[in-house]
């Protein structure tokens, strides 16, 4: 092959990859267009801000899930874990409020981060040390976390102390230069995630483990440690989402976070991360979370479908978005 030929190839290849990476953003744009056509109110600043703010939860948890899925794992426990962390955090804050006042909030948040990371560690260790399918382990811990929050709330609900409400509210409802805090937190977490995944040794190893764990092992990568760490990151992200969640709803109930795992995994996959591992798109995940939230929003705004059929239309749109994805993406 002449050197001229070789030189000609890279541009083409790079272009293709970038095009593929764009797919979730294109899908997002299409759905936004759809929304704007269906309801003129859709594009109002208020609505757009609401939707973006709301998608923060799935996006933040999704960043962690991207790590787990990139290593070839899967975490079904995230929704329950989130409820459990919310419960622990509210209990901690309520207990601390009398002595610490508003300072109970940051301390409680710290507790949440620690508990979240430990929950992730638990998942990771059972999976790597016990060498059991992540699907089964996290299905088990999903039941465990769900049961614990039910127990903690006595089957009812657990609300945050009234004295803390107003001090805590801005974490969800406040904004900085017009950008809501949850959006800022999402951007920070996603940037951090992207940095770790694409720019650090650990991130390299995450994709290597997901791509071919034998190769990674022979290359001196501690596969078990990398996997476990991914679950810890997942747990940390769940805790961050919990911190944003509490000021919005102010309480934990046994149904908090239910079925979020499916939404999160869907967001990650729509974002272009492969379920079999080895490939990860942090920003795609964020786009995926937005897509899901926009679809739900459009459903509420449009009065066209019977209430019973909302889920059907949502399912159809997701499949169509993925089809579009496939035909704009490479291969």
């Amino acid at each position, binding site marked *: *092959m*002449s050197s001229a030929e*070789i030189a000609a*190839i*890279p541009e083409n*290849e*790079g272009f293709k990859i970038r095009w593929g990476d764009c797919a979730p953003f294109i899908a997002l744009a299409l759905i936004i267009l759809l929304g704007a056509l269906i309801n003129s109110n859709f594009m109002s600043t208020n609505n757009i801000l609401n939707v973006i703010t709301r998608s923060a939860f799935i996006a933040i948890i999704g960043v962690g899930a991207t790590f787990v899925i990139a290593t070839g794992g899967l975490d079904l426990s995230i929704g329950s874990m989130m409820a459990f962390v919310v419960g622990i955090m509210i209990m901690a804050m309520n207990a601390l409020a009398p002595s610490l006042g508003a300072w109970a909030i940051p301390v409680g948040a710290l507790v949440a981060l620690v508990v979240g990371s430990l929950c992730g560690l638990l998942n990771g260790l059972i999976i790597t040390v016990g060498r059991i399918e992540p699907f089964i382990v996290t299905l088990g811990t999903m039941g465990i976390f769900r049961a614990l929050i039910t127990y903690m709330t006595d089957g009812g609900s657990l609300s945050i102390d009234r004295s803390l409400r107003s001090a805590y509210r801005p974490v969800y409802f406040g904004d900085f230069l017009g950008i809501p805090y949850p959006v800022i937190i999402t951007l920070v977490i996603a940037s951090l995630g992207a*940095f770790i995944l694409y*720019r*650090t*040794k650990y*991130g*390299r*190893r995450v*994709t*290597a483990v*997901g*791509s*071919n764990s*034998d*190769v*990674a*092992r*022979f*290359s*001196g*990568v501690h596969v078990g440690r990398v996997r476990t760490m991914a679950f810890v990151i997942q747990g940390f992200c769940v805790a961050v989402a919990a911190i944003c969640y509490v000021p919005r709803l102010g309480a934990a109930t046994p149904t908090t976070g239910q079925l979020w795992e499916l939404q999160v995994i869907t967001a990650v996959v729509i974002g272009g991360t492969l379920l079999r591992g*080895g*490939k990860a798109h942090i920003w795609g995940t964020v786009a995926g979370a937005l897509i899901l939230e926009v679809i739900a929003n459009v459903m509420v705004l449009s009065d066209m479908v019977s209430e019973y059929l909302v889920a059907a239309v949502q399912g159809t749109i997701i499949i169509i978005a993925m089809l579009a994805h496939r035909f704009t993406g490479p291969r």
Partner: protein
Amino acid sequence: MISRLLETSGAENAPTPPVLHAEALSKAYGPITVLSDVTLDIRTGEVHAIIGENGAGKSTLMKLLSGHAAPTGGTMAMAGERIAFADAVQAEDAGIVLVHQEILLAPDLTVAQNLFLGRELSRFFSVDDRKMNRRSAEVLERVGSTARPLSRVGDLPLAQRQLVQIARALLDDRKVIILDEPTAMLANDEVDALLDIVRNLRAQGVAVLYISHRLEEVETLADRVTVLRDGKMIGTWPATELDQRQMAELMVGRELSMLYPPKRGLSAADPVLTVNDLSVDHGKTMGSFTVRPGEVLGIGGMIGAGRTELIEGLMGLRPAQADSIILNGKNVTQPDVGTMMSAGLVYLTEDRKGKGLLLNEGLGPNLTLQALNNLNPNVRLDRRKETSTVRRAVQDYDIRVRTLSVEAGQLSGGNQQKLLLAKVMLADPSVVIIDEPTRGIDIGNKSQIYSFIDDLVRAGKACVVISSELPELVGLSDRVLVMRGGRFVAELTGEDITEQNIVYAAASSGNDTEGRKRA
């Protein structure tokens, strides 16, 4: 003859102390011993070749030396000190690195990411991609690879992946570099480049352990040669004392007959396969050719010339379109793998691990997968027939297994190749296309495969052989097509089939009109 050689074995005196010494190494998988009592010295600044039949235990020995597997008996010492490696990483830290016979790279990562996996360079908290890419480019150039640091490994042709593996071993300074059949997937140019690298390493004082079934390489390169047979050590000789025939005979333990069967001459029969203007991957590769019963058609070319691509297109395994493909009277324009196979065309892939065999399945399911419909007229599987088929294949193709319940992935490389050959032949084809037929096959079995092809063709079938091994192409083919840049550029017959002519056609930068010439 053999007995005389055996007497001289081990008689040489050691000029330099061994960098690595193995004493009575053994390896058993469960009840099956695959290597017993191997004692070996490896010295700095030497190329030490290990030869032996398929399944003799060469790869196993290399895995023990490099920490990829733990010995079940025996000891190792480096520079006089006893060592035992818990894993490959410890061995690499000690300066021993193994380049596997099979490709072991993460397909989703880029070349540079693979090269530096597990030992990434970093600045502050961040990986230093610029530096890694630069160093990757350097080492890739050194091994003569055209792959770029940013290419995804999964998108590379096999030969390039092999070179990337070699490059990985050369990235850091090593004391011992083990190359397990590094040239099996390479063509002449790359082989020459590789041999130069090995000589260079030797000059720098590195000990190189070198496994190859290409005995001419061993003869020109090695300082000493160790022969294994059936998991046992036969002996170590200075390379100067052995010629290729002696090596072969030590390996197989008997005298060898002629390598290539006599040629059959040009066939005059009506073509069994006629391909008119086949265009693969939207014109990236194009070609027209005919295959006649009773002939071996060779296809030559450099690596990346597009031979594999063209044939995969012909089989319907890649997007392809043709004016017409006439196979056994059946006319097809849009090939599809099911149609082609039922019309009597089969293809043996060059990528036996990725596309040829189910590594986690046993011999039976692998062997019968392609011919399920031929073997079982009803929906129901005939398991008794399957067992007898396996036994017959093991016998006919001399697949060395110690139990019939092994998984395909546990076979030695060469035996996997034989299993694959047995698998495609089971479909009783009228035209067989074999991509790199003897990749990883030992010299004794090579002649067996050649005579097998000869029998086939003499029985009125046709065989197309894609090979990067020129002697094979020359020795086997009645007619040779040469490909370059995705087009056929020459057709050679009779006396014209020589290594020089093939190399000339494959490499010369002839003009385009010649490139599109109908072959």
